[in-house]
C-alpha cells in the first residue's frame, strides 16, 4: 500500500480548518472569482500585492480576478445590530508573490468578524488563529502585537508623522540600531526613545513580557492600552503565543491587535491578521473588523518525506489478451488494497513496487521491489 494520504497537505489543511471554524459557528462565505476593479484601486495599500489581473466584462465594466477576499467581505457585510457577523472562507486568489514569475493562483483560507468587535471576540479570534496553526503542524508560533500601543509610544517619545514610515520599517526588522540612528537624526537621545527600544527588544511569553513593559510605558494612555492588551492575552492563555511588537501592519488600516503565525519548515509567516477598523471606516461602514488569513500555498515548499513509489503495482497486458481477464487481474490486485496502473508496456517514468503481467488470465508477478 502506498503510505501516502490521497489528499495533498493543502487539501488536508482546508478540511481541518473548515471543520474548526464550523465548530465555532462561523458561516462559510462564498464569492465570485471576479470583483469590481475599483474596490482594489481605492484600497491598494491593503493588498499584499498591488498588481491585479483585470478584464472588461461583457457590459464594459472593468473587473478584476480577485487578489484578496477581505475587501469583498467587508463590502458585502451585514452584521446584526449590536452583534458580530462571523464568516470563514476558502477561496483562490490571484496575485504576484515575491520571487514568482508572473501571477499565481493561491489558496487562501481565513475568517473575518464584522460588527461590534469586543474583547471576547478578539480573544476568540486569537484562539482560532493559534488552533489554525496547530492544524498545520506541531511546531508553531503565534506572535501578537498592538498597533495602537506602538503608535502611542512612537508619538510619546517624540517621533512625528515624517519619521513614521522608516520607524515602522525598523520596528518590523527588530532594527534597534536603526531606531537609534533615526532618533539621533531627530535630535533625540537614547534615553528619550528608550521606551520604544524596550517595546521592540522585549518579546516572548506574555506573562514575562507584559509586566516588564508596563514599567516603561511613557504615558498613562499607553499603560492603560497595555493593561487591556494583557487582559485579552491572559484570557487566551496559549502556550505557543508570544508578545512581539515587531509584528507590524499598515497603520492606516489596522488600529488594534495584529498578529502573525509561523510554522516550522516554512520560511515566512503563514498566517497574518489583526483588527482593521480603519479600513471599514474608509469604506464608509460603521463597524469594527477583525480577521486573519492563512497562506496555504506556502505548505507546498514544506519539508515532506519523499515518496519512494508512484504506484504499488503496474499490470502489463498483451493486446491479444482478453480485456475481461486483464480487468479481473487488475481488480484482484486492487482488492488487496494496492494502487494498480495498467499499461501495455513497462512505463519508464513511473516508480512501482511490483510489476505484474496478465498471462492467459493469470496474474504473474515479474518483479517485486522492497
Amino acid at each position: 500500500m502506498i503510505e501516502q494520504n490521497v489528499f495533498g497537505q493543502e487539501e488536508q489543511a482546508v478540511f481541518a480548518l473548515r471543520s474548526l471554524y464550523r465548530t465555532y459557528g462561523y458561516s462559510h462565505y462564498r464569492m465570485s472569482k471576479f470583483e469590481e476593479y475599483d474596490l482594489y484601486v481605492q484600497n491598494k495599500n491593503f493588498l499584499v500585492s498591488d498588481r491585479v489581473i483585470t478584464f472588461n466584462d461583457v457590459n464594459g465594466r472593468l473587473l478584476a480576478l480577485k487578489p484578496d477576499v477581505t475587501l469583498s467581505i467587508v463590502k458585502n457585510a451585514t452584521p446584526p445590530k449590536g452583534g458580530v457577523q462571523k464568516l470563514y472562507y476558502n477561496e483562490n486568489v490571484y496575485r504576484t508573490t515575491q520571487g514568482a514569475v508572473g501571477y499565481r493562483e493561491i489558496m487562501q483560507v481565513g475568517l473575518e468578524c464584522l460588527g461590534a468587535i469586543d474583547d471576547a471576540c478578539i480573544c476568540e479570534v486569537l484562539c482560532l488563529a493559534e488552533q489554525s496553526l496547530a492544524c498545520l503542524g506541531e511546531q508553531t508560533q503565534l506572535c501578537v502585537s498592538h498597533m495602537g500601543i506602538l503608535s502611542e509610544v512612537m508619538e510619546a517619545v517624540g517621533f512625528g508623522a515624517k519619521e513614521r514610515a522608516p520607524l515602522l520599517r525598523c520596528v518590523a526588522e527588530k532594527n534597534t540600531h536603526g531606531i537609534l540612528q533615526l532618533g539621533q537624526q531627530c535630535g533625540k537621545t537614547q534615553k528619550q526613545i528608550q521606551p520604544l527600544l524596550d517595546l521592540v527588544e522585549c518579546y516572548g511569553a506574555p506573562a514575562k513580557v507584559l509586566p516588564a513593559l508596563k514599567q516603561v510605558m511613557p504615558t498613562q494612555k499607553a499603560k492603560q492600552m497595555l493593561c487591556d492588551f494583557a487582559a485579552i492575552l491572559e484570557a487566551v492563555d496559549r502556550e505557543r503565543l508570544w508578545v512581539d511588537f515587531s509584528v507590524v501592519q499598515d497603520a492606516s488600516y489596522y488600529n488594534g491587535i495584529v498578529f502573525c503565525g509561523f510554522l516550522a519548515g516554512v520560511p515566512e509567516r503563514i498566517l497574518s491578521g489583526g483588527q482593521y477598523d480603519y479600513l471599514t471606516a474608509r469604506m464608509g461602514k460603521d463597524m469594527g473588523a477583525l480577521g486573519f488569513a492563512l497562506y496555504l500555498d506556502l505548505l507546498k515548499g514544506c519539508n515532506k518525506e519523499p515518496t519512494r513509489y508512484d504506484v504499488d503495482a503496474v499490470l502489463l497486458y498483451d493486446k491479444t489478451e482478453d480485456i475481461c481477464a486483464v480487468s479481473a487481474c487488475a481488480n484482484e490486485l486492487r482488492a488487496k488494497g494496492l494502487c494498480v496502473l495498467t499499461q501495455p508496456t513497462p512505463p519508464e517514468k513511473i516508480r512501482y513496487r511490483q510489476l505484474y503481467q496478465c498471462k492467459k488470465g493469470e496474474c504473474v508477478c515479474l518483479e517485486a521491489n522492497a
Partner: protein
Amino acid sequence: MKPMLNIALPKGRLGERVYNMFEQAGFECPAIKENNRKLIFENEQAGVRYFWVKPSDVAIYVQRGAADIGVAGKDILLEYCPDVYELFDLQTGICRMAVAAPVGFRDDLRRPLRVATKFSKIAADFYASKGREIDIVHLNGSIEIAPILGLTDVIVDIVETGTTLRENNLEVVEEIVPISARLIANKAAFQFQNQAIERLVQNLKIQQ
C-alpha cells in the same frame, strides 16, 4: 539531535573577519579554516553549519530560509529590501554609499542627471528624496569608468578609502548613507532557533 543553526557568510575577507567574531562568540567550526574549495562546513557539537555564499546572495538565502541567519552589507539590504530581521550592526566592513563625479563637476539642473550605478534602488530613492530627476544607467562593475567615458555624469557606488576614485580623477560629491556588515535573521527561524540566535547576538555585543 540538536537542531543545526545554518549560517550564510559572505565569501571573501569580510566573511573571514565575521567568522572570527562568531568563533569568539562560541559558534566555532574549525573545519572552515581548512584550505580547500568546500562551501559547507558543519560542527555538530556546536550545532552550527556555515556556508560561503556570494555576498549579494546572503540575504536571499536567509529570506528563503536556506540559512537561519547571515551577514550582509547594509548596501545589499537597502537595495533589495529582503523581509528579514536586522539584528545587529557588526561594525565591520565599514564604508559608505556615495555620489562621485569627475573632479570639478557641476550639476546642470536644466536636464536629468545621468547616474551610473549597481544600486539602482538606492540611487532612485536618494534622488527622489531630493526631488532631482535622474536617468539611471545600471552597470554591474567598473562603475568608475562611466563618467570618464561620458556615459553618465556621476556614479553612485560604495566608497571605502577613496583610492579608486582618486586614481580615476573622481571625487565624492555627496555621501548617501554609511554602510557596514549586519547580522540578519530569517523571521521564521528566529522563532524556532531563538535561543541560539539570541546567544550569538549577546556574545557579539560583548565583543564591541
